[in-house]
């Protein structure tokens, strides 16, 4: 197959999927990788996986605090317990994968978002949707090995997102294809939460 034809087909799929701008990855994390693996794979992976680790640590802290103080009951509590255990496992796996390259844990501040069940559920939904978008949007930069690790996590984040959306009465799967954002936008959303100083 000629490269031109392949590109045309890929573009057709992207257009049909409504994926816009997602390939304009760059800046904050790393420049988009060419198809041939580069020698700085490890460095690139470390940047992206550290970003994933940051998100996982935010979620671990968020669920732990909510389980302590939000007065969660019933299935909402079950959700928080399950998600908390999963995020801890994700963080452990990422720390293991990163080794010495793992960054230090951030300082976290969830304000009143863990103060009661209603605010917890709303914030959990935002956090899980953000997590799905983050993994999908940064996948382009990953080496095959790191991509495989991330792939085992992203669908679990999507399950969490659907679960909490359903619990809140929102549509669990609001789009036919997952929206993608630039890493810059995802980082800005995370910063905007005030959770990470």
């Amino acid at each position, binding site marked *: 197959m000629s490269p031109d034809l392949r590109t045309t087909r890929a573009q057709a799929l992207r257009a*049909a*999927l409504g994926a816009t701008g997602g390939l304009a990855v760059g800046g904050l994390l790393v420049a988009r990788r060419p198809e041939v693996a580069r020698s700085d794979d490890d460095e690139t992976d470390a940047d992206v996986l550290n970003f994933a680790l940051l998100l996982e640590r935010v979620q671990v802290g968020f669920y732990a605090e909510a389980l302590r103080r939000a007065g969660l009951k019933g299935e909402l509590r079950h959700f928080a317990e399950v998600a908390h255990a999963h995020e801890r496992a994700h963080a452990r796996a990422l720390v293991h994968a990163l080794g010495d390259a793992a960054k230090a844990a951030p300082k976290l501040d969830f304000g009143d978002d863990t103060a009661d069940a209603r605010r917890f559920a709303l914030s959990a939904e935002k956090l899980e949707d953000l997590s799905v978008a983050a993994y*999908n949007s940064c996948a382009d930069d990953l080496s095959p090995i790191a991509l*495989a690790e991330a792939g085992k*996590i992203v669908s*679990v984040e*999507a399950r969490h997102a659907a*679960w909490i959306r359903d619990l809140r009465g929102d549509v669990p*799967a609001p789009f036919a294809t997952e929206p993608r954002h630039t890493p810059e936008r995802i980082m800005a959303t995370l910063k905007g939460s005030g959770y990470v100083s």
Partner: protein
Amino acid sequence: MSAEPDLVLADVDRDGALAETLAGLGGVTRADVLRGAVLGGATLLAAAATPAAAGAAGSDDAILRFALALEELQAAFYTEVERNRVLHGGAAAQAHIVGAHERAHVAAVRKALGRGAGGTPRFDFGGATEDAERFTRTAVAFEDLAVAAYKGQAPRLRSRELLMALLTIHSVEARHAAWIRRLHGVVPAPAAFDAPRTLDQTERVVDATHFVVTMRSRRRPPFTG
């Protein structure tokens, strides 16, 4: 809530025609299957990193046809259950929205494949779309399978653009899976990590089903890359 559904796809399949369709519709060659067998049991990590799995020219199309087969199956399943009007309340709402998603996935993958997409298969779900309980159990199996299959195949794509596009379908299938699992009364997210399935593993699972009756067309594409 129990941790696992009480049914897997193998239980609802009866005569194994789905595997045949996947092989035909999906453009999966015996070589692909054998390669899957070689990789069987290996992690996605190993599969993605294996030079052989990077594939010869045209392997992206084979993966897309495989994805199309899964999407055709799901789209037909949801479309038929809606037509049969056996679902009510939350289950009906789920089928309405998810059915539209699966049809959109079919359209998107078909468009990407162009003339190589081939015909639309016909399915016989053997009563699984005529009973709400049977439908939901089967849908749980389909959605979990789709998540695992995309996870197994997407990283094998040579085109990064196609990879990114399929990943945006992959996580939506995971949302569908969690949604239907909750409707079925099982934990929406049963494990911290979702395991991938290889082509071979996926085919073995669907081999046990008996949902695919005929292919309307098995025209070979005018070129195979």
